[in-house]
C-alpha cells in the first residue's frame, strides 16, 4: 500500500494478571483502506480495539494516530478517531438528536449544521427527535454511525458494526463505509464475526489468534484463479493434468487446479482424449471462511459462530 499509514500499532501488548492477552501487535492502517479484523473469540480483538480508542491502557507499546501517541497526546490523537465499540449504547432517555448534540459538544468545531448533515447521511431525519429507547437495533446502529462520523474522523474503528442489521441494512452500511473510505480517504478498521461480510467489505484482513497477529492479507490476493473439475476416474485425470504441469489438489471428490481461464479448453480436450468422463468444470473460489479455518486451525470457529 502506498502512502503513509494513519494508524500504527507498535509492539502493542497487554497483560492482565499474569496472562498475556495481546502479544507485540504491529499493524499499519492506511487512508482509504478498509481493514477487517478477524479472530476467534477470546483472541484479543476487543482488547486490541479498546486499546486503540483509549479505553484500556497498553502494558507496553503504543498506538500512533496521525503521528501522535494515544498515551501521551490523548486529546489530539483521539480527535481523529470515530468509534463504535460493540453495541452503540446511547442515552435511551434522550432523543437521538440530543445524543448527537451531547457528543458534538465534546469535540471542537462541530456545528449544528454538521449534526443535520450527518443525520441526513445516515437517513434518520424522520425519527431523530424521538427517544432512543424507542429505536430498533438497526436505528441505533445508524445513530452509532452518526456519532462516530460527527467530527469527520480520519480513522473509523468499528467493532461488530452490522450486528442486528437486516440484509438491506447491512448492504447499505457496507456501501456507505466504502463510500466514506474512498471519497474522504478515511481509514476504516472493522472487526466482525460475519466472515462473508468482511469479505465483501474489506480491502485487507488482519487475523489475530491468541493475542498474536498471524496473518495480514489483501482480499484480492485471496482470489487467485482456480478451477474445480468433477471427473472420473480421478487417478487418470490426476495423471494427465499433473503431466502437463498444472498444480492440483483433491477436493470434495474432484480436483482443484490452479490455472488461468485460457488453459481450460486445452485441459478438457486432453482429459477427453485420455478417456476421462467430465461431469462439471467450474471456477473455484476458496471462501474466506475456508481460509480462516485453515489459518486459525479450525476448532475454534465453532465458538466464534456461536456468539
Amino acid at each position: 500500500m502506498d502512502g503513509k499509514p494513519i494508524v500504527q500499532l507498535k509492539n502493542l501488548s497487554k497483560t492482565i494478571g499474569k496472562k498475556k492477552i495481546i502479544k507485540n501487535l504491529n499493524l499499519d492502517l492506511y487512508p482509504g483502506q478498509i481493514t477487517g479484523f478477524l479472530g476467534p473469540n477470546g483472541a484479543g480483538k476487543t482488547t486490541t480495539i479498546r486499546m486503540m480508542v483509549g479505553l484500556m491502557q497498553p502494558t507496553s507499546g503504543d498506538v500512533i494516530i496521525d503521528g501522535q501517541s494515544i498515551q501521551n497526546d490523548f486529546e489530539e490523537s483521539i480527535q481523529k478517531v470515530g468509534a463504535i465499540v460493540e453495541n452503540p449504547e446511547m442515552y435511551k432517555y434522550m432523543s437521538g438528536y440530543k445524543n448527537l448534540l451531547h457528543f458534538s459538544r465534546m469535540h471542537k468545531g462541530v456545528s449544528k449544521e454538521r449534526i443535520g448533515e450527518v443525520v441526513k447521511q445516515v437517513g434518520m431525519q424522520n425519527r431523530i427527535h424521538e427517544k432512543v429507547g424507542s429505536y430498533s437495533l438497526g436505528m441505533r446502529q445508524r445513530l452509532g454511525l452518526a456519532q462516530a462520523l460527527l467530527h469527520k474522523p480520519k480513522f473509523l474503528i468499528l467493532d461488530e458494526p452490522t450486528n442486528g442489521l437486516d440484509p438491506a441494512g447491512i448492504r447499505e452500511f457496507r456501501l456507505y463505509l466504502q463510500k466514506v473510505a474512498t471519497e474522504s480517504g478515511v481509514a476504516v478498521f472493522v472487526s466482525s464475526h460475519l466472515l462473508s461480510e468482511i469479505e465483501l467489505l474489506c480491502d485487507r484482513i488482519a487475523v489475530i489468534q491468541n493475542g498474536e497477529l498471524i496473518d495480514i492479507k489483501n482480499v484480492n490476493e485471496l482470489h487467485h484463479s482456480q478451477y474445480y473439475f468433477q471427473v472420473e476416474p480421478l487417478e487418470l485425470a490426476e495423471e494427465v493434468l499433473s503431466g502437463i504441469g498444472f498444480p492440483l489438489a483433491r477436493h470434495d471428490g474432484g480436483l482443484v487446479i490452479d490455472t488461468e481461464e485460457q488453459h481450460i479448453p486445452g485441459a478438457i480436450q486432453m482429459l477427453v482424449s485420455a478417456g476421462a468422463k467430465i461431469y462439471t468444470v467450474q471456477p473455484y473460489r476458496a471462501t474466506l471462511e475456508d481460509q480462516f479455518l485453515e489459518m486459525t486451525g479450525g476448532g475454534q470457529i465453532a465458538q466464534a459462530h456461536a456468539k
Partner: protein
Amino acid sequence: MLKLMQNEWMKLWSKKASWMMVFLLVLLLFASAAIGKYVNSTANEGVEESWQAVTAAQLEVNKAMIMDPAMNDAQKDYHTGQIAIAEYRLENDVRPFEFTSMQQGVIDAHEMLSIVTLFTVIIAAGITASEFSQGTIKMLLTRPVRRWKVLTSKYLTTMVFAVLLSVITLFTAALAGLIFFGIGEGTFLEWNGSEVVEGSYWLEAVKLFILSFASVWILGTFAFMLGTVFRSSSLAIGLSIFLMFTGIQAVFLLSNYEVIKYYLFTHTDLTQFYNGFMPVPDITMTMSLIVLAVYFLLFLGISYWTFSKRDITA
C-alpha cells in the same frame, strides 16, 4: 468545561427521576407546613401561654446551662447570647416570632436539608455509575476530553444540583409559610458579642443553610466516590444512606474514645457551633472544617485516581 457541564445538566434533567425529586421536595415542604398548622391548632387549644412566659422559662434554662462546668467556649457564648436576647425581649417588650409564622418557617427550613442530602446522594451515586451500567461510558471516554475533565464536570454538576435543591427548599418553605401561616408578629434579635441588635431573619436562614450544607456536600462527595469506584449506583446509594443514618448515631457510641475527634460524622453538622448542641464538646469550628477538608480531598482523590486509571471493560 462549561460544555461538559451543559451535557451533564441536560442528561440530569432528561431523567424523570430528577424532576420527581424536585416535585417531592416541594410536596414535602408544603406537607410539613400543613401538618405544623394542623398540630398547632389542635394541640394548643385552650392553652393560652403568653410569649413572655415562654421566654422567661427559656431564660431560666439558659441560666442553668451556663453554670454547667462541662460547657465549652462556643456553648457558653451561645447561652450568654440567648440570655441577653431573652432579657432584652422581656425588658423592652419585643416578642419573638410566633411558632406558626412564615418567618419562623424560613429560619427552620435548614432542618429540611436532610431531604436534599438524600436526593443529592442519589444523584451523586448515579451520575458516574449509570454511565457504566448503560454502557455509554465507552462513548463518553472515546472523545478528545481527558477523563479527569469528564469526572470534574460530573462532580460540579452534582454540586450545582444540590445548591439548586437547597435554594428551592428555602423559597418553598417561605412560600408554604406564607400560605399556611401568613406573616406573623415578632422581631428577630441577635447577639453580636456585646449587645443585642435587631437582625434579618433571611440572613439568619441563609447562614444556617450554609452551615447545614456542609453535610450535603460531604455526603454527596462520599456517594460520588462510591458510585465512581464501584460503578454500581444501588450499592453507592445504599451504603451512603446507611451511613447517613447510622453515622450520626455512632458519634454517641464512640464519644468516649479519642478517635471520635477524627470521625467524619462528628463534624458534618456545622450548625452545632451555632446552636449550642454539641455531642462532642471539645471540638472547634476550625477543627471541623479541617477534618471535613481532609475527608473531601480523600474522597475526591480516590474517585479521580480510580476513574482515570481504570480499564473500561463495560
